[in-house]
């Protein structure tokens, strides 16, 4: 079976001031289609960098990043943008909703990059908002919604164009426990009932328990960890 995500011998570093900092060194990872993978690790361990490479937001210095059969490390910036629009839905820690737009307009944004008609876009938006339980909040602007509701709008935006992969960067990092559980249950549902492949970075061990596999990143090195042992 071919992996949806295949990372081979990847190095990634950044130049900070006059110093080069290696964030990932010789990283290898495979994620199968339909998995719900959680990645944990201390701050600065490289987990978000790994997520950015998988999501096509950044490019590795060395090695190969192959996602959905595409060799992302060989893509130009424009080609990566088009690839992201087709294959990836992002869920951010601070939701990153556009404050001047209503919930439905926010969810519609990724569909503006498709050839769907206005009517089809509206139908898809309505379906996505219904799926996250916010059908009755479509006209509300982000400022009029709670944190949990905003994150649900963020999830609806991420899945409205039916992407191959959902990338979630600490999706519950800005939420209280109750809202966190609700969002995580939603992600679990999307994985279990809708077959969405999800890769989630989190600091929260209880969030990681909703995943089907858990990895630990520390000092740029990945190690597998049995579920239920994250502390």
């Amino acid at each position, binding site marked *: 079976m071919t992996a949806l995500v295949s990372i081979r011998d990847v190095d990634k570093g950044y130049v900070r001031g006059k110093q080069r900092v290696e964030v990932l060194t010789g990283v290898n990872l495979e994620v199968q289609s339909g998995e719900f993978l959680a990645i944990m690790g201390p701050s600065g361990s490289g987990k978000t960098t790994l997520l950015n490479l998988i999501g096509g937001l950044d490019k590795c210095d060395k090695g190969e990043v192959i996602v959905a059969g595409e060799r992302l490390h060989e893509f130009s*910036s424009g080609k990566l943008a088009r690839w992201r629009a087709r294959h990836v839905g*992002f869920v951010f820690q601070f939701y990153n909703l556009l404050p001047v737009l209503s919930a439905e307009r926010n969810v519609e944004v*990724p569909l503006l990059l498709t050839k769907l008609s206005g009517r089809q876009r509206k139908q898809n938006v309505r379906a996505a908002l219904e799926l996250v339980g916010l059908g009755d909040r479509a006209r509300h602007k982000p400022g009029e919604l709670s944190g949990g509701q905003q994150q649900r709008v963020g999830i609806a935006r991420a899945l409205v164009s039916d992407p191959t992969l959902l990338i979630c960067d600490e999706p519950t990092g800005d939420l209280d426990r109750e809202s966190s559980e609700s969002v995580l249950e939603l992600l679990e549902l999307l994985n279990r009932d809708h077959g969405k492949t999800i890769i989630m970075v989190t600091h929260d061990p209880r969030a990681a328990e909703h995943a089907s596999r858990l990895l630990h990143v520390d000092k740029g090195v990945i190690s597998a960890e049995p579920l239920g042992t994250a502390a």
Partner: protein
Amino acid sequence: MIALTQIVAVTAMNLRNIPQRLGSSCVVVVGIAGVVGVLVSVLGISTSLTDTLLATGRVDRAIVLRDGADTEVSSALSVDAALTIVDAPGIARTAEGYVAATINMVTGVNLERIDGTLASMTLRGTGAAVFDVRPEIEIVAGRMFERGVRELIVGASALEEFAGVNIGDIVSLRGSDWTVVGVFTSGDALESGMLTDVETLLSAYQGAPRNSVTVMLESEDSFDEFRDALTTNPALTVDVLRETEYYSRQASFINDVIGVVTNFVAGIMAVGALFAALNTMYQAVSSRSVEIATLRAIGFGQGGIVVSVLCEALLLAVVGAFVGAAVAWALFNGTTINMGSVNASIVFRLEVSPGLVAQGVVWACAVGLLGALLPAIRAARLPVATALRAV
């Protein structure tokens, strides 16, 4: 189509964000309004003056000046030369059989304007055939001056601009009193001054030369005959011009001068507005870096982001242009302007025309685009992964 949808979507978001950046957006609008206001006003002076000058000339009327003289005031003709000129072939005849020609003396008179300031008004001494040479002159109040008497008639534009030149008022010239006896219209630059009998004026200004001769030609085609007769006469050293050509030269010279001033002043203001636009658009991009990065993460291209930032700046520029043009129109359109030197002046109405507003909009768009270009490029090059973490 998708690219267009992207641009429209991102531009719409940018524009909806403007209320959150109202102060800095207003700086751009006001800066550009200032540039366009000044530009439109100064260009308005230039075009209105040109229109007035060009309306003054007729192709079947000719003016004769001393060779090398640019203006009537700088020209000087001897009595013999003036008499030789009016004897030349090609000049029309009056109903009484006289030649339709006037020997002119032109000078400036310092008078008080209605607002209390001093300004120079053109005083033209002209001959008995003035109505034949200039049939557009019409006495609209009072009567014509009498020959040999110290009387003046005043142009309608000059009457609006100057104090103490109403019918019955006394104007002091070279220590003697001259009475205003009538008001005339001519629809051209002549209306900016006063007319009187040339011989009476010459006697008051002892030693002053005759400046020019104006003739009505038999026809438009008689010009060559008239000019050749004068320029081939060895006793004369004169320039012979159709009146339209003479005023066109005047307009061209004035336009050149005003053009330099306009471009200089508007250029300096444009640089200021450019920096305001630059600063505002940098601020706009900076305050929306997370939004821009989010859009880029979702898959929006760099081109759409660049164009959307440029569109926002263009919109602010166009609003500024119309505000500036509206202010210029409200303050100056229809204003009577007196432009003059010690020896002569011209009064005209400033018109803020749609053509000038269009020029202002073009300037504004150029300023807006230049000011937004670097911020737009910065927005497009924003490192997405870094910007997303900058919440």
